[in-house]
Structure formats: C-alpha cells, structure tokens
C-alpha cells in the first residue's frame, strides 16, 4: 500500500541535510582559519584566484556579463604573461546562502589567493564573515550598498561607487533638472534596490518632494495592479530594479494603462532590455564604447565571445576588478610564493593610471575606489545618451 510521505521523514531529511551543511561549514571554517594563519601558496606554476557570481538562476543574464569580462581579462593576461592565472569558479545564483557555501569552499582552498565577486551586496554580506576569517581579499565589481566599506567586512574592495553617492546624484537630478514634485518610488526588495530607494526617498522628501515608496517582488512578472495604485498627479516614477527587463515591463504596462509618467531607473538601466523612450537612469560606469582607448579591448571581447555578447555597465567594472586582482596577485607572487596577506597589501597599494572605465583606480583603506562617480543617461531614439557626468 502506498503511503503519503510522513512529516517525520521530511524532518529527518531536513535535519540530515542541515547537519551535513553544518559539518561542511565547520570543516571549511577550520581550514579557513589555517589559511588565514599565513600559509603561503607556491607560485611556481602560476597562481589561483576565485570567481563567484550568478552563473545560473534568476539573474543569470547579468551573471553572464559579470563572468565573461573578468575571464576575458584573465585570458588576455595568460596569453601575454608567463605567470599564469587559474580561475576557480563558483555559482552563487544571486543567493546569499549559495554565496556563503562558495565562500567556505574558496576560503578552505589554500591555493586561492583572492576572489572576484560576489555579484551583489546581499552576497557580500553573506560571504564576508568567512572571507574575513580566512584573510581573503575579495573584489566585487558592482556591489553598491554603502555600508560594505565601513571597515567591518574584512578585506573587501569594490569598483562601483557606493549607493550613497548614487542616491545624492539621482535625487539632485530629479529635483534640479527634472523638477519633479510628486514621485512614486518602487524597489524590488533586493539588497541593492531597497536601500537605494530608501535613500532617494529620504533625500527627495528632504527637498520638499511628495514621495510614496513601495516594493515589488523580484519574482513579479506582472505590475498591472501595482501601476493601478500609483497616485494620481505623480510626475515621476523611480524604479531602481536589479533586472532591466522587468523595468521595461513596468514602463510598458504604465503605457498600457495610459500613465505617461517619466521614468527614472537604476544601474541596470544600461541594457538593451530596457528601452523606454525618454527614461533616465543613473549608473556606476560610463558607456565604454564612447572611450576611444577602450575600442581594441571591446573588439577583442566581441571576437572572443561573439557579436551578441553582453556589454552593458556590468562587464567593464568586472574586467577592471580582475585587472587589479590579477596584478596584485602577480606582485605578491614575485618571490615565488604568496600569502593572502600579501595580496591584500598589494591591493591596497594598487594603482591603475587609467582603466577601461576611463578613470584611474586606487582604493581607499576600506576598499572604495577614490573619486568614483555616478553618471546619468537618458534613452533617446532607443539609445542611452549621457546627460550628466
């Protein structure tokens, strides 16, 4: 006779799984501590770094770009240098729990001298305790939560400027140039979107703008009811979503309901998936196609990955992150061995006189790029046009 699966079986499976994870984390933590103790890795056959990002999962579309650009830099490096870099990859699926597991694996792998990633602020928060204990330096290209560089996240570095700069830039532009009086703010409940939307809301309110702030689920596939709820008289909608295709749908559904309200998006607005005519967006990186010196790199990238390979604002900072980390690892390996502490030391000293982003790269003691700024684009005739540097 067939019996339904009992609660006790489910519980037993859950406890077994939880125990297994616990053992894994515990053993990883032990190994991590020994690595942090200063075990030196041999650089005789090159060096190893880690890459973690959302290769699969809901935001794999962004993950493809976050992954391809640093791997592209490593392939360029390996083609030119005798000192080879090996990359160990981890797929965090944009999920803090997965990020934590991968951080454990990377920390316990004593060959790994530094890490590229994770992809977003929530994963940084999850991975930080493990990397901190392991003395691992890790460089996120696009994690923008302001608090990540307050000194409590270990050897964390990032290429994108923090959200507090973005919030000020955005709020000032909305008030000064767009002269909005009534704004509806929507975040997508992500660790990136929610704090940014909150900061912009506060700044706008401080400037006398009437603001309503709501959230939508990252899993939402229909915004019709949300749009129905936008208060009448709203003259601007701010949607710093993680996913550009969803912002596009939001804009299209506003049009479907006859709400011709100006739209202002966040970093992910720089994407072919987002092309609402007249919409604005602020982003952490310029369009590198406009930077003459970058053209050979862009050409080589498309040659390697195909003409349809992604190039928005996510790839170039990832490339720069790889550039800085690889060069720091190479410097640390100059005497034939390297420790994670040496890589950290060299990252703090790292200085690129220029970069793919069009500006120099040098870090503050807490890991922010000195002088990094946000820029604002507007979509005109289907293409982003820079409206504020």
């Amino acid at each position: 006779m067939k019996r339904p699966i009992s609660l006790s079986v489910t519980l037993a499976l859950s406890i077994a799984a939880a125990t297994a994870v616990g053992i894994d984390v515990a053993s990883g933590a032990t190994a991590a501590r020994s690595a942090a103790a200063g075990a030196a890795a041999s650089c005789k056959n090159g060096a190893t770094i880690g890459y973690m990002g959302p290769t699969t999962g809901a935001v794999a579309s962004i993950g493809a770009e976050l992954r391809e650009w640093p791997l592209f830099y490593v392939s360029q490096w390996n083609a030119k240098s005798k000192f080879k870099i090996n990359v160990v990859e981890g797929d965090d699926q944009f999920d803090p729990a997965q990020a934590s597991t991968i951080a454990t694996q990377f920390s316990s792998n004593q060959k790994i001298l530094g890490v590229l990633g994770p992809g977003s602020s929530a994963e940084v928060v999850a991975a930080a305790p493990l990397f901190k204990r392991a003395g691992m330096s890790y460089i996120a290209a696009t994690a923008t939560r302001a608090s990540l560089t307050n000194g409590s996240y270990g050897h964390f570095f990032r290429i994108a400027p923090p959200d507090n700069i973005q919030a000020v830039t955005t709020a000032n532009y909305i008030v000064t140039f767009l002269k909005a009086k009534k704004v509806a703010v929507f975040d997508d409940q992500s660790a990136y979107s929610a704090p940014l939307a909150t900061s912009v809301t506060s700044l706008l309110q401080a400037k006398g703008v009437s603001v309503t702030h709501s959230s939508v689920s990252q899993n939402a596939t229909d915004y019709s009811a949300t749009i129905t709820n936008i208060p009448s008289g709203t003259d601007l909608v701010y949607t710093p979503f993680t996913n550009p295709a969803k912002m596009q749908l939001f804009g299209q559904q506003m049009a479907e309901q006859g709400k011709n309200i100006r739209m202002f998006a966040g970093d992910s607005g720089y994407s072919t998936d987002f092309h609402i005519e007249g919409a604005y967006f602020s982003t952490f990186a310029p369009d590198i196609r406009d930077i003459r010196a970058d053209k050979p790199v862009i050409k080589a990238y498309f040659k390697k990955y195909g003409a349809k390979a992604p190039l928005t604002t996510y790839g170039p900072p990832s490339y720069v992150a790889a550039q800085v980390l690889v060069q720091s690892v190479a410097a640390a390996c100059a005497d034939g061995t390297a420790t994670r502490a040496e890589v950290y030391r060299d990252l703090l000293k790292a200085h690129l006189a220029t970069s793919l982003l069009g500006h120099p790269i040098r870090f503050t003691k807490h890991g922010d790029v000195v002088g990094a700024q946000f820029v604002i684009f507007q979509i005109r005739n289907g293409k982003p046009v820079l409206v504020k540097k």
Partner: protein
Amino acid sequence: MDWAKLVQLTVDGTTLGAVYALIALGYSMVYGILKLLNFAHGDVYMIGAFIGYFIYTALGAPLTPSVSVVALFLLMLGAAALGCGLLGVGIERFGYRPLRNAPRIAPLITALGLSFLIQNSALLAFGAGFRNYDTFALDNGRLFSLGIHFHALNVSLMRGIVILAAAVLMVALTGFIRWTPLGKASRAVAADREAAEMMGIDADRVIAWIFFIGSALAGIAGVLFGVLFQNVFHYMGFVAGLKGFTAAVVGGIGSVPGAMLGGLFVGLAESYAVGYLPQGSTFEDLWVFFILIAMMLLRPRGLFGQADVRRA
C-alpha cells in the same frame, strides 16, 4: 468607492488568473490520475513560452511579421501546444512511467529533478538573457492601444484576447473530459486504475494523453503569458509553477473546474492584495501563500476537491 480601480484590478487579476488556471489544469489532471505532483510542469510552461517566442521572431514579428496577427498567434499557440504536449509525453514515458510502482517519494524527487533538468537545459540552449516578445510594437501597438479606455479604466485588446483564449480552452477541456471517450476513460482511470484496466481501458495510453493535454495547455499558457507580460526566460516556470500549483490546490487538486476557479481566485487575490492592502505590492506573494495555508486549514480538499474513497 473607486469603481474604475476595482474594475481595473479585476481585469488585471482575471488575466493573470487565466494564465494560472491553464497551468493549474495540468497539475490537477496529472494529480487526479496519478496522484503525482509534477513539479516539472512549470518548466513545460516555460518551454511553451520559448517555442512561441521563436515562432514569433522567425515570422518577423514584432516589426515585420510575414503573416497576419491572427495567423501569427494561431501558429504560436499551435506550435507551443504541440511541442509541449510531446515534451509532456516524453516526461511521462521516460521520467514517471518506470517509477509507476515505486514508493511515492521516488517520482516526487524525479519531478524535482526533471524541473531542474529542463530549466538548466533551457539555460544552456537559450542562454541566460531575457527574451522580450515586445508585442507593444506588434501591429503598430494596436493590441494595447485598442480596447476600453474610459477615464481611469484601461482594458487593452490584448488582455481581452488572453482572457477569451483561456476561457475557450477551459470550456473545450470541460467538454472533452465530459463527453469524449478519452475523457470518460481518463475519469475512469482517475477513479480506479485497476478497475479501468479490467474493463479494457489502456491506462498507459490514457495517462500519456493526459500528459499531452496538460502540457499543451501549459505551453499555451506560456505563449499567452509572453504576449501579455513580454518577458521570457529560463527561470520563469519556477514561480509560475508555484502559483499554478497553489491554484490547483485552492481549487481542489484533481478537479478540473477547481483548477480553473483556483487560478482565477489566486490571480484576483494577488491583484486585490496589491490594490487594497497596505504595502500590498511588497507582500503580494505572502497573500497568495497565506490563502493556500488558510485553505488547507479550513478546507483541506480545496474548493472542489473530493474526499478519498477508502475501501474497508
């Protein structure tokens, strides 16, 4: 009372609910006949959305379609129904049939495994990017500009098409199950497979047809979703599958009319929650699953579910 808002939310919820209902039908039909939760069903829906998209773009849409809009939609729906129907038959034949007499946890785990297999195969085959039907650009945007536009109320022609298509399919399915020999056979197999086989019904054939029909409906739901909500991506089946499953359970899993009503119920609940509850859009999913839990507590068999017949 803001009547325009109420009507707008009702239309929004009905459209979404129609898609959920079509997904729920597949869950419910398979559960009714095999007592199996086919978790791969949401991913079949995703494949349907992709098939529709590829037909759509292959025929030059949205900007330069080589056929009329009606023919375009019929081709997309037909191809998605056929492709997903065959996929469903394949899933049943190679994934579930060998486990027909295995302990119930085996096909359940297989269902989860198949879901990930299809999802990641789609990632591999189609890439991680979002594909956009961009039906806003089709036929000079008439599908969205035409319709009822009265004060704050906006009901586009596209929403009307989606609701109508779903309604026609549900009526057709009801008639099919009630009056055709295969429909009657499927009811017999659902009631008692052994007895049905003793009466000469080929249960394997009936089950394969049920998978075909349920999966075809999921494929059509995928296309209807795509033409209205635009975005198609490898992960889209996960949440839609959960919502469809919720609809099936709310309606009474195993019941075809229950799946239809459950879908509408979930769609409307989502829409009204967003429209009327404080921070509704923030907790949209919370409300849907709160309904599921409440339904399980108050009426475990769902709206139309029937009590198990137990032999002494």
